[in-house]
């Protein structure tokens, strides 16, 4: 199993959700996040004083998938998240040792 994590722009959430559903993903977790990449946030002006706001609002989407689906799913997320502008975010996957469905106790791929 793999855990796919995507840190993306908040306004792309709906597109990504739809794309994941179309792909057949059963569940996902969404968290509000903040951070910056190479572009380092933005500038705000208050009475002429400029403030650099490093941490930009993002959302973090996490999905557990079977190994075979991982690469394809990453592409799905990337395509749905892309706007072509700076700050589109990142997607990565990490191996997962085990997963358990809390209600039934099922383990591994059955728990997905």
């Amino acid at each position, binding site marked *: 199993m793999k855990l796919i994590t995507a840190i993306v722009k908040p306004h792309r959430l709906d597109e990504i959700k739809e794309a994941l559903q179309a792909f057949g993903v059963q569940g996902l977790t969404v968290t509000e996040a903040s951070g910056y990449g190479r572009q380092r946030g933005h500038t*705000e*002006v*208050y*009475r*002429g*004083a400029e403030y650099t706001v490093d941490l930009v609002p993002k959302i973090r989407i996490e999905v557990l998938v079977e190994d075979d689906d991982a690469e394809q799913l990453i592409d799905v997320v990337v395509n749905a998240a892309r706007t072509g502008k700076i700050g589109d975010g990142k997607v990565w996957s990490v191996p997962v040792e085990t997963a358990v469905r809390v209600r039934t106790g099922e383990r591994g791929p059955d728990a997905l």
Partner: protein
Amino acid sequence: MPPGILTLAAEEAPALSAANTGFMLICSALVMLMTPGLAFFYGGMVRVKSTLNMLMMSFVSLGIVTVLWVLYGFSVAFGTDIGSVVGWSSDYVGLSGIGRDQLWDGYTIPVFVFAVFQLMFAVITPALISGALADRVKFGSWALFIALWATVVYFPVAHWVWGSGGWLFEMGVIDFAGGTAVHINAGAAALGVILVIGKRVGFRKDPMRPHSLPLVMLGAALLWFGWFGFNAGSWLGNDDGVGAVMFVNTQVATAAAMLAWLAYEKIRHGACTTLGAASGAVAGLVAITPSGGSCSPLGAIAIGAVAGLLCAMAVGLKYKFGYDDSLDVVGVHLVGGVVGSVLVGFFATGGVQSDAKGLFYGGGADQLVKQVVGVAAVLAYSLVVSAVLALIIHKTIGMRVSEDDEISGIDQVEHAETAYDFSGAGGGTAPRKAVPATAGTPAAAQQKKVDA
């Protein structure tokens, strides 16, 4: 000069006017609303951790100054003149010797009404100072400062400017509703105090962004609304339309100042900001306060526009000179007050509030010189005395909270409260109730369906 305005009092002894009395009671209530309005204006501009302290620094003035005003403030400001510097009338002490139908000096409203109207001015003036001291002043020391400052600065200066026999009043300085006595006075005091107590921890290093611009807008809107009472009420009645002229001038100058500030921002920084709109409006209100009773509506537009532009430029001075005027009391109230007071010398049309004409209306430089003297006197007196008062408090009981407390947030230290609860759904430390059985609820029914 429109007929009848200045001759009315001379011709017949005035009788109590129910209309004017009602009008002035409403104006007094409007001015009262300015102090909580100011509290929101300032409260939104500070960081989350010092919101309540900022609100309280304004709000407490309603308590302290009200009591002092009744005890002796009204007597010092508006009692019988002593040496053109202060007043004193034992009848006014505790407002004890005033009959409820006794009229204020040549006007058609009771002394009591005049006293409460002026009280509201006395309340908001020290509150204005607090914006410069955000995040770092002990609440007890601030309360003491207000009491001392009102006593030795505000009450006497109000006498100079408005009291019969006061030296600026007798000289002919025009301050319709408080450009010198309120705004220059508070702005100069703010500068005096911050020069003594110093900067906030992290000034020019940490971002100190306003935590709630909607709160700032709410406060600015309440100020604007209340200011109609502040300005239009300052003629102490409206039999002759001067109050209405002042109402119009207040509106147009404020509008022009807001637009000027926004235009400056758009050109200089590329965006018209919410804080700029609120600040521009306040700058316009400040500037029209001394001048609105003597200029035309077109003059008011010019005064507002100049004030909006100059105040927008002036708020940057603190970074240039390195003094921490946290919420720009100097930049908006001192500069705005000076602009409005000096411009009377240019824009006074003669015949509205007084016969004096400004430079643009053929009056020569005479009025301008008087205005400059008034500005300089109040500015210097307030600056020096406020700095001395702050220094005395700073060296005795201390004016500032500790650095640790300042960093962790003054609300918790000084008020044992926080403005907002960020612990999720209002939960936090409250004991949990037992979770009720879910059988029979729609959610449980749906869950069963899914399980099946």
